[in-house]
């Protein structure tokens, strides 16, 4: 773990650390926690490395790299016996009283611990607690070492040197684990590729840190890291860019958004990559032409969704990305898209609610809202990805569902995914197929229209009607949020109303039949396990990691990960739950929302619940502990998890 004040380069240094490890063939999972603040508050980045695939974080830290007092004070407690803490001895004497960004309740908890061990309220006091537990403490006088580096380069500006402290912390960490320095150098070259001078001085700083740590603490640290060969092509990705890349690939050419954490990163990624390369195997005409995606920042989320809908009426694949508060404003637009059968994709990055809630923290609290946002009944698809790899492929599915079934699709991801990084096997664009449904553009022959007007909402057995885009010759029709007839004119006729409602809702039956099982859910583990976990979204990683450690301890579980929540895969879920022995619902929200959705759709009672709503994603150990206690019968019906800083 590395931590520091927001704005001090924690993110960059953790990225360099993670990339250097990933380059060396290690599997990496990284997670970022931060306050709703730009500069000054505490943030930290946790990176987990392994020879095997890792998909979640753990609560105990092997190595804590700090360069400020607050990180040491807050996180030293989480370091395991035989683990290590790197710290700047010049802050050792700092009093906790003087660290203003520590909230009163945290301060009170710290003092009570320190008082019980008769230790001073200072960084040294906290480090002594760790020392007593068996943690190695490694002082690293950053500025002394850096000044020597500065002298080599004729750089004496303190602010320039200070900027490299976080890289030194990364280097010191790797030095303790004997990880080869050339991997770190390579990661720096990639990070600062357009700035060779920055690379040069940073590499000098890294070298100095390696030398210092080797001289002082040679061989003292028990955990070692070494590169391993990679058989596959691999990438290291973050949620926001993953969804962005997938939107480009899926043909999204209009994205609207209003700034909101943690969704806007995706739109900014798209704006930065608005010119799109087209495939070289195309006709010459298309090769000469670049594609482009128009990214429009609107005045609010109401404008974001309605502008995307307006675009979609012309045939473009359009989407908007938002988080809970923005999605609340979009509810009326969702209804309009529903009644007008407009293909639309909303990417919903859940964060802690209600209201402004925990704006930079994680929760899966919007499932019920995604299912029910807007008044009246409309057909909709709600799809929840479990990790970044799923999200990549699900983006295309979301657009395909939207266009095939002509309805709004809410693609749910969350803060934990948006702000986590993970190594995956290289994504494969060849697996992507774009399906545009019954869209019509160009010219409609005269005998297929009514004197140039078109029965856009024609009743059909599937409920799906051919859809001319605005601008189609001979396709004139009307849209309205009122109930309407086949051409789209307002109609309050009761017979027409029933016909139209049935037509629209019927599309969901078709979707249920057509969407393959693997897109609806994933099932992991042996069929006949004594415990069945049900969950959805980004808890997937921690559950899979916990399942492995549970198995090592002889506790066998299987796991039903729901992906398509609407239309709900009733038969499939019934079938799985009917053979389950004990069903445990695991979710990141207060009310076990998926559990309720399962019960209302299948009538199956769930046996136990594991929920968490403190804003911090579930760790592998938490799930391990909860399931172990459920297995031995010592857990209550509803377990509330609370780990995380």
């Amino acid at each position, binding site marked *: 773990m590395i931590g520091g004040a927001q704005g001090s380069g924690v993110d960059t240094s953790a990225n360099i650390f993670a990339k250097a490890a990933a*380059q060396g063939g290690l599997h990496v999972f990284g997670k970022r926690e931060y306050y709703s603040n730009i500069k000054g508050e505490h943030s930290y980045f946790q990176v987990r490395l392994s020879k095997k695939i890792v998909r979640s974080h753990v609560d105990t830290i092997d190595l804590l790299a700090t360069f400020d007092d607050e990180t040491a004070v807050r996180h030293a407690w989480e370091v395991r016996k035989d683990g290590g803490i790197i710290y700047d001895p010049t802050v050792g004497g700092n009093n906790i009283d003087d660290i203003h960004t520590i909230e009163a309740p945290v301060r009170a908890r710290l003092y009570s611990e320190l008082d019980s061990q008769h230790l001073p309220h200072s960084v040294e006091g906290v480090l002594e607690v760790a020392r007593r537990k068996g943690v190695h403490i490694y002082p690293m006088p950053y500025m002394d070492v850096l000044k020597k580096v500065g002298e080599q380069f004729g750089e004496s500006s303190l602010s320039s040197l200070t900027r490299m402290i976080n890289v030194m912390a990364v280097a010191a960490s790797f030095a303790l684990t004997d990880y080869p320095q050339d991997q770190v150098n390579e990661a720096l070259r990639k990070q600062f590729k357009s700035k060779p001078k920055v690379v040069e001085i940073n590499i000098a700083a890294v070298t100095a840190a390696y030398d210092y740590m080797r001289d002082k603490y040679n061989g003292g640290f028990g955990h070692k890291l070494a590169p391993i060969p*990679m058989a596959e092509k*691999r*990438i*290291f990705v973050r949620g926001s860019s993953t969804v962005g890349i997938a939107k*480009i*690939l899926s*043909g999204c*050419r*209009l994205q*609207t958004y209003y700034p909101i954490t943690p969704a806007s990163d995706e739109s900014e990624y798209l704006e930065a990559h*608005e010119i*799109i390369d*087209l495939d070289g195997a195309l006709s010459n005409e298309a090769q000469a*032409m*670049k*594609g*482009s*995606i*128009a990214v*429009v920042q609107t*005045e*609010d989320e*109401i*404008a974001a969704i*309605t*502008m*995307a809908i*307006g*675009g*979609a009426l*012309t*045939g*473009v694949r*359009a989407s908007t990305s938002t988080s809970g508060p923005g999605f609340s404003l979009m509810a*009326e*637009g969702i209804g*309009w898209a529903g009644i007008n059968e407009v293909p639309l994709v909303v990417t919903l990055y859940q964060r802690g609610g209600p209201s402004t809630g925990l704006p930079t923290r994680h929760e899966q609290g919007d499932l019920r809202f995604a299912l029910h946002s807007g008044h009246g009944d409309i057909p909709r698809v709600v799809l929840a990805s479990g990790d970044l790899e799923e999200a990549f492929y699900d983006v*295309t599915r979301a657009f395909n569902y939207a266009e095939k079934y002509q309805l709004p699709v809410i693609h749910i991801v969350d803060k934990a995914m948006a702000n986590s990084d993970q*190594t995956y096997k*290289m994504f494969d*664009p*060849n697996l*992507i*197929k*774009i*399906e545009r449904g019954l869209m019509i553009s160009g010219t409609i022959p005269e005998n297929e229209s009514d004197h*140039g*007007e078109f029965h856009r909402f024609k009743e059909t057995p599937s409920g799906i009607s051919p859809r001319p885009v*605005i*601008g*189609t010759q*001979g*396709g*004139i*029709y009307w*849209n*309205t*949020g009122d109930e309407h007839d086949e051409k789209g*004119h307002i109609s309050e006729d009761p017979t027409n109303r029933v016909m139209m409602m049935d037509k629209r809702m019927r599309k969901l039956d078709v979707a249920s039949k057509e969407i393959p099982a693997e897109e609806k859910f994933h099932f992991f583990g042996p069929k006949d396990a004594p415990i069945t976990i049900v969950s959805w979204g980004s808890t997937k990683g921690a559950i899979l990691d916990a399942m492995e450690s549970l198995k090592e301890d002889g506790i066998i579980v299987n796991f039903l990960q729901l992906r398509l929540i609407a239309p709900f895969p009733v038969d499939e879920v019934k079938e799985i739950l009917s053979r389950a022995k004990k069903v445990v619902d695991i979710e990141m929200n207060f009310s076990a929302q998926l559990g309720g959705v399962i019960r209302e759709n299948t009538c199956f009672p769930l046996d136990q619940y594991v929920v968490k709503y403190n804003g911090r994603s579930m760790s592998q150990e938490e799930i391990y502990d909860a399931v172990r206690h459920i297995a031995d019968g010592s857990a209550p019906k509803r377990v509330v998890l609370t780990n995380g800083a």
Partner: protein
Amino acid sequence: MALKLTDLKSDVHNDWCPGCGDFGIISAVQMAMAEMNLDPNKTAVVSGIGCSGKTPHYLRTYGVHTLHGRSLPFATGVKLANPNLEVIDCGGDGDGLGIGAGHFVNSGRRNVDMAYILYDNGVYGLTKGQASPTLKLGVKVKSLPLPNINSAINPTMLALAAGYTFVARGYAYDVRHLKELIKKAIQHKGFAFLSVLQPCPTYNDILTKEYWGGEGLLDAAGKQMPRTYKLEAQGYDGVVKSEDEMEKEEKIKLAVMKSFEFGDHTPIGVFYQNEHVPTYEERLTQRMPTYKTSPPAEQKIARDDGTPLANISKLLDELSVN
């Protein structure tokens, strides 16, 4: 082939109240479209909620009857996705200046190339005559139980402050003059705002057809004088003719002064026009050179077998670790 007025009329029964100013507006829209020979297949008329919101249903073009207050962002989405379409937005004063005021202001900042016709009658007609944002303080139209407690917005000044590049006002029953203003609004390069004084015979018994016609306002000879006058007839010129910021400022100041005239001497015509401000489409084209030639709606995104045309290998390479 020249368009006839009947080509632009849908089969839908028009249920506006007899004598509604909206009839004048829709006639002027049809006349303008016919004279400009706008292809109904390439035209979208977008509206919000209220009596004005029904306009698209009575016209034979692509019609998009949207949500209350949201017609502008819907229309903007249509136009930005396919700038080759003609987009005309029709909305009421409650729709555009009340519930949709945020979109009204921000549309000025964008300057998308489309026309917005605001039906200004001072009341919320379809919900039975509540006070709208353009009704003056203390006025009690017949449907109000008590006089209006809010002050009125000055739409012209608001539009100028928001950055609209075409600001005009028409009168619903001066159809020929209104038609010319609509043509100018559509032809204008940029976002054109045209508010129309539109008597509501059912709920606004103060700003009536008779009122605008000059009832009770007599000249020295005892002849009834209309309460509207045409800006151009008085030699007023609100058109900015150069990129000079000073000229722009002067013209805006003139228009703001004119916008205060309301009541017995109410100007109609073009208050302000400036085509030297780049449209949103032009701004996008600067960043994405193929935007106009290959706009979002017209880009091919897949081969016939569904394989995507976008090549993301560079994007993936940026993230590759080996």
